């Protein structure tokens, strides 16, 4: 069975065998034959051709109308043969693209990588998982020697390669103005001008920028149309929405952003996310905000990194391990 080839003799034998026995064994061999033919990229019209030739050899007295009808069948299969070959070459091209994208995704990972700072006062948990190979979400930490932790969370409206390209630009824009890194409203205003100038108007970027001062435990923040975060009060075991106004980046060059400040108590948490978290779906149903919060709450006793990991696992399971949107979740907790 292993040396099947699409040669006339072989096909003729198989066909003869089947006509004689009409049993399943012969049909199984036909199946093997067709699989092997596909491996050798043999198109359907060639099989028909071999069939016609086999019949001619087996039944030289074949009636003329059968011969004619087979030729007719062959003619109708020619375009299928061409389509089959086209399919083969498109498949090869697709594999090529896939491997190119995975190289790009790796590059992006390196470009956008951020190190989670180890700080005694604040415990940090962070997780970002792309829906496709490339991530349109972005988060970044900076910790300076004055004890200030800067956190950026951003989301490009859109997914895949265009979103990822846009994100890389944002990252480099942010790297280019370090002197005002710790001032959330200033950072958003500057980024807004960069996005407005450089990004196609159909693409929007939302961003939340916060800076945590570990000396007096205050959290300053501004938002450019980003998904609201949450503040968790440990004493009351309650969440409070961090919803602040602000236009998405790139709409108008003149936009300014208001900065807010909040005192953070010991054991309290700040939760930042992208809409990939809040727009998780179970079947056709979007999950409610309460559900997100109750899931976070159920893991609130764990270390920050475990909270985000467990929340992700929960929603991954809920969505049958198929992410529709990039998923980014960050948890900060005041420890001391």
């Amino acid at each position, binding site marked *: 069975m292993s040396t099947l080839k699409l040669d006339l003799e072989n096909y003729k034998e198989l066909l003869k065998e089947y006509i004689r026995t009409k049993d399943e064994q012969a049909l199984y061999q036909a199946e093997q034959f067709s699989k092997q033919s596909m491996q050798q990229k043999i198109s359907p*019209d*060639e099989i*028909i*051709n071999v069939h*016609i030739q086999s019949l001619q050899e087996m039944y030289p007295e074949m009636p003329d109308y059968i011969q004619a009808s087979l*030729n007719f069948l*062959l*003619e109708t299969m*020619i*375009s299928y*043969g*061409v*389509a089959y*070959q*086209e399919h083969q*070459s*498109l498949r090869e*091209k697709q594999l090529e693209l896939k491997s190119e994208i995975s190289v790009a995704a790796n590059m992006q990972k390196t470009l956008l990588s951020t190190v989670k700072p180890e700080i005694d006062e604040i415990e940090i948990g962070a997780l970002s998982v792309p829906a496709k190979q490339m991530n349109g979400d972005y988060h970044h930490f900076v910790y300076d020697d004055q004890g200030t932790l800067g956190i950026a969370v951003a989301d490009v409206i859109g997914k895949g390669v265009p979103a990822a390209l846009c994100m890389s630009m944002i990252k480099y824009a942010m790297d280019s103005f370090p002197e005002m890194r710790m001032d959330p409203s200033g950072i958003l205003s500057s980024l807004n001008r960069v996005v407005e100038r450089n990004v196609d108007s159909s693409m929007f970027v939302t961003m939340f920028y916060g800076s945590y001062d570990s000396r007096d435990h205050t959290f300053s923040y501004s938002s450019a149309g980003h998904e609201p975060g949450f503040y968790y009060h440990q004493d009351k075991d309650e969440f409070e929405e961090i919803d602040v106004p602000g236009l998405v980046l790139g709409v108008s060059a003149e936009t300014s952003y208001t900065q807010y400040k909040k005192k953070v108590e010991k054991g309290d948490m700040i939760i930042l996310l992208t809409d990939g978290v809040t727009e998780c779906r179970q079947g056709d149903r979007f999950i409610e905000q309460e559900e997100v919060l109750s899931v976070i709450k159920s893991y609130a006793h764990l270390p920050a990194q475990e909270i985000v990991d467990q929340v992700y696992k929960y929603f991954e399971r809920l969505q049958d391990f198929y992410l529709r949107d990039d998923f980014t979740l960050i948890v900060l907790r005041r420890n001391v």
Partner: protein
Amino acid sequence: MDFQSCVNIKKEWDIVGARQLGRDIARKIGFGTVDQARIATAISELARNIYLYAGTGKVCFEALEEIDHKGIAIVAIDNGPGIQEISQVMEDGFSTSGGLGAGLPGVKRLMDEFNIHSEEGKGTEIRVVKWLR
């Protein structure tokens, strides 16, 4: 060039005439049924392109006889608008006839050699060859 025979393409019916003549020549050269069918399909595609995009033109056939092999050459010539982006029409999945025809990449697959010259505003000449094996 001295062609054995040509078919003028003016109306859709002429596509059938071109197929018929091409198939007859292919049979005389010695091509089998499946290759005749492939050659006819390629002729259809070339003739239909002329009919749809250039309006008029012709498809010519030439029996090739070299020392070691025989074959058929088909040349489709029109004075139509020409093809702006040849690389685009040669791309898989980019079919100008609404995805129904095999398109030029299909013609290339059906034949052994494929040559295209096109000038915007002047016309297009496509020459394809299939060798007898």
